[in-house]
């Protein structure tokens, strides 16, 4: 369905692309590809010299997710399938907390040791491989391999696993020893009886994948193997595309909310919070207590089922979590009647909506202190918080002009522009690639935050970091606008984190099936602390470094902010 109403952006974009191509005149395929790439913010092209064999066959993926390995994983690691974690060291390492890094380092050491011990046996096994197979194995060796030697694939996996903290992270060296012993056993068993391999527990099988299955894969048509970032992206994309999330018992209101969020028709965390509240209201109003069940327990479970659905689609953010917790569903008395419970929840929803509105007003008041008369402000994309603040500011009679920065992938900038110009504010509109030359004239950059992280960085719509960086380099102060309800205990440094979402469609759709191209466009950006001069909250204007203090302060409703699982 090409003419689908939901993705107007992509359609017009495609048209634009086509126009541009036509202007340039007919070109060869390669030329066209170049032209496409110009429009693509994040496109990673894999070098064609990559056709290495897949170390693990793709179909195994599903199986492994159910394998006992999963149980050993620490609960709050990413939900990305196990196989993908192996190659994710670069991006994931960034978001490890200090303890995690420490643990990982220890684990690494232990793993190294284990590797050394293992080497002789590995060679033995390699010798056992029939010559033909060994050759096949060597053949698809890529021209540029970072590892000096192409070791037996078995070892390679071990190595990969050792550099990867996710698997080993929380295992003590003792456990590692145990694992090694099991692995050796498994290898022996594998040699002796290949038929029984399948039955061997997955944990052992993963590192001790029998040589034979690897060589089998070599025989398959060489599939380009994604590495590093590309692999992470592919994993995220696959996970996003998965529709396996259990839909049983999910209320239609939540299904609609999910659909609208997923297809980017509901943008901005505040809008999403209100949307969530609306969906919750219909859930609560349609709720019926099953017989012989305590409402306290069942209602919480019922709501949790809905929320789990959103979480499964990577759509839960800090603000949404906070909103759910604010309802305090688990604090009902045991014998509360269904009617009373509904009234209470509805009241809580109203109260929360009121609080959102109040917070917005407070932020507007605080922002007013920072905007001088006649100032030129720059805003990026749409933020209802900033929009409201500017509206209030304009109503008080202050004169200011606004540079609205937009991007090609999101039309938030356009929304901002049309609303501001409706008010009568003097506006300039430009795209993010032109922000450099306007920056020296700007006195203040305002960024609407999706969330503030415990490491003092800000999560904003993709592109925020770029604006902040340019502003910073030219000495323009950057203010993040964020209610304290969006402060989070998480800390990410890269943009590849759990709650971040992928664009629902590719940026270069006509190159969708190109095997060496992985496309990725993330919804959110992480703006590092050093780029942000201050945070404007509903309480006061804070320096970035005080995010943890707010999180820990006893006065704020810390009960609600308890770490998200």
């Amino acid at each position, binding site marked *: *369905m*090409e*003419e*689908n*109403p*939901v993705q*107007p952006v992509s359609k017009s974009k495609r048209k634009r692309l086509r126009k541009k191509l036509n202007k340039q005149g007919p070109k060869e395929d390669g030329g066209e590809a170049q032209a496409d790439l110009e429009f693509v913010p994040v496109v990673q092209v894999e070098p064609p010299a990559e056709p290495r064999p897949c170390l693990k066959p793709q179909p195994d993926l599903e199986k492994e997710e159910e394998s006992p390995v999963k149980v050993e994983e620490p609960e709050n690691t990413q939900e990305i399938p196990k196989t993908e974690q192996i190659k994710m060291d670069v991006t994931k390492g960034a978001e490890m907390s200090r303890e995690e890094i420490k643990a990982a380092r220890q684990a690494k050491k232990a793993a190294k040791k284990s590797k050394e011990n293992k080497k002789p046996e590995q060679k033995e096994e390699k010798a056992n491989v029939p010559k033909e197979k060994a050759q096949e194995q060597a053949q698809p060796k890529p021209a540029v391999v970072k590892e000096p030697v192409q070791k037996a694939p078995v070892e390679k996996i071990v190595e990969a696993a050792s550099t990867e903290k996710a698997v080993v992270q929380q295992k003590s060296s003792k456990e590692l020893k145990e694992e090694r012993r099991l692995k050796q056993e498994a290898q022996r068993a594998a040699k002796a009886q290949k038929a029984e391999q399948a039955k061997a527990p997955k944990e052992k099988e993963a590192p001790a994948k029998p040589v034979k299955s690897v060589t089998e894969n070599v025989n398959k048509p060489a599939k380009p193997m994604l590495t590093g970032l590309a692999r992470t992206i592919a994993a995220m994309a696959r996970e996003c595309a998965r529709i396996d999330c259990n*839909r*049983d*018992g999910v*209320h*239609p209101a939540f*299904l*609609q909310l999910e*659909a*609208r969020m997923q*297809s*980017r*028709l*509901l*943008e*901005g965390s*505040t*809008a999403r919070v*209100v*949307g969530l*509240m*609306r969906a919750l*209201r219909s859930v609560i109003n*349609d709720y019926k207590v099953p017989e012989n069940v305590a409402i306290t327990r069942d209602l919480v479970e019922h709501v949790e089922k809905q929320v789990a659905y959103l979480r499964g689609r990577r759509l839960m953010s800090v603000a949404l979590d906070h909103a759910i917790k604010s309802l305090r569903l688990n604090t009902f008395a045991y014998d509360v009647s269904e009617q009373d419970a509904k009234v209470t929840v509805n009241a809580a*929803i109203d109260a929360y*909506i009121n609080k959102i509105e109040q917070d917005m007003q407070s932020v507007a008041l605080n922002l007013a202190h920072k905007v001088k008369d006649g100032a030129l402000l720059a805003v990026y*994309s*749409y*933020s*209802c918080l900033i929009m409201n603040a500017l509206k209030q500011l304009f109503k008080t009679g202050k004169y200011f002009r606004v540079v609205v920065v937009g991007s090609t992938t*999101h*039309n*938030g900038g*356009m*929304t*901002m*522009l*049309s609303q501001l110009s*409706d008010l009568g504010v003097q506006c300039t509109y430009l795209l993010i690639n032109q922000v450099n030359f306007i920056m020296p004239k700007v006195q203040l950059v305002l960024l609407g935050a999706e969330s503030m992280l415990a490491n003092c960085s800000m999560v904003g719509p993709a592109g925020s970091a770029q604006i902040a960086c340019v502003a910073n380099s030219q000495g323009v102060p950057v203010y993040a606008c964020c209610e304290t309800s969006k402060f989070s205990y998480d800390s990410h440094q890269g943009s590849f984190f759990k709650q971040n979402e992928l664009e629902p469609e590719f940026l270069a759709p006509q190159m969708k099936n190109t095997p060496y191209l992985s496309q990725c466009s993330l919804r959110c950006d992480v703006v590092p602390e050093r780029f942000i001069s201050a945070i404007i909250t509903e309480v006061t204007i804070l320096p970035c470094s005080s995010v943890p203090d707010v999180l820990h302060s006893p006065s704020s409703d810390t009960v609600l902010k308890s770490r998200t699982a």
Partner: protein
Amino acid sequence: MRSNEYRVILLAAGSGSRMRDITNNKPKCLLPVGNMPLIWYPLSLLEREGFKEVNVITLDVQHAEVKKAVDKLGLKLDVKFHTIRESDDLGTADALKKVAICGEWKEDVIVMGCDFITDQSLDEMIKLHRTTGAGMSAFFFPSIPESTSVPGPKSKIRTDRDLVVLDKHNRLLMLTSAMDHDENMSVRMRIIKKLGRIDIKSRLTDGHFYILDNRVWNFIISEENSDMSLKGEVLPFIIKQQFSHLNKVVHKESKGELKRLSVDIDDEQETEETHKFFKHFTVDELQNLTDLYNGYNNHPDSSYGRYLDDRLRCFAIIAPSGSSFKVNTLASYCEVNRQVLLAENWERFAKSKPLVRVDPSCGSKTRKIESSLVGANTQIGEGVKIEKCSIGSSCIIEQNVTLSGCIIMDGVTIKEGTVLTDCLISDKANIGTNCNLKSCLVDAKFSVPSITESSSKILSGVLMSTE
């Protein structure tokens, strides 16, 4: 899975007035397409998509026959039948009201015709409906070409085309029949002013597949709705209401402006009905607030907000060409029968069911059968040549018969040496020896005498209107 999300109503009481020649003896929903009754296609689509329960509306006189046929299909669906009396001559909207008596529904409702065949995923359609927050979504697909060959006399077939007016986001702005506009069609200035650019499409067929928001559904079944036909009256009315002054989102702060807005009404005569309609659209504060804070705007260039600040929005879901069929004319019936004979098409339309070309019960004599379907217990004689035909069950085809491009229903007897090309033979017809028929339509139970040569005719015992 879907049962808590949508209620489905399948309209199977249609008499097939546009294809009277083959429906006077058989309910339309049981016409064979690829040797399966027509109603099987929507039912299996629903089953595939995880629906548990379907409400089927049938005529009382056909009820038993349809029920028997549906039971035989062995579907996992819980099919609930609702009958309407043929003598009442009810419109579709009235029929829906009959179903609604059975209980109050909180879910959204899908209304579809039993003659709708598609390879599109319902999931996608439903997703579109949800993301746009539409009050009503209708399904359209490109019409089959008019040059499609049809058995029977080559009369000039007047197809009633729909005129579908859309904006660039496929929002449905108008839906009328081209018949109603002989010379000119007027579009209200307000629509053009609001949207800047509209597309009027005349080559789209309405799939009679509608997803209705609960509020719209409540209006349709309510007392206030006095119109009879869904397609002819109710839906155009609903679509028109999009441009009512009452359709504005009323934000808290702008309540005072409501009065100002109501000044520019240009058609007062409808206001009363409009008020009745919007009574079902209660103000949803949270939805308004969500829209207010939302950063997405699909009309960034206009001074209106998202979706032009409308509460009621109707959207068209447009499928690619060849993906769907609406079997309500003889032409489309023949076309769909031709299409499903191709293996890849069969797979598209009947995903779950494997294609059985020739039923094993037909025996194996020397014969030549190419890309055709043959039903159970059909006897085929020696030296028979069959090409691109679908042949029903319990037929008798004697030796040296040549068939190409024919649709042959159940229980037909074709005697020795007959040659049939592009014919449609109804149930239990009898064709004599050494006939040569081309593009003919043979009525049910009719016996064609031996050595008949004829082309482009309707062969039947009674004189019938040829539309």
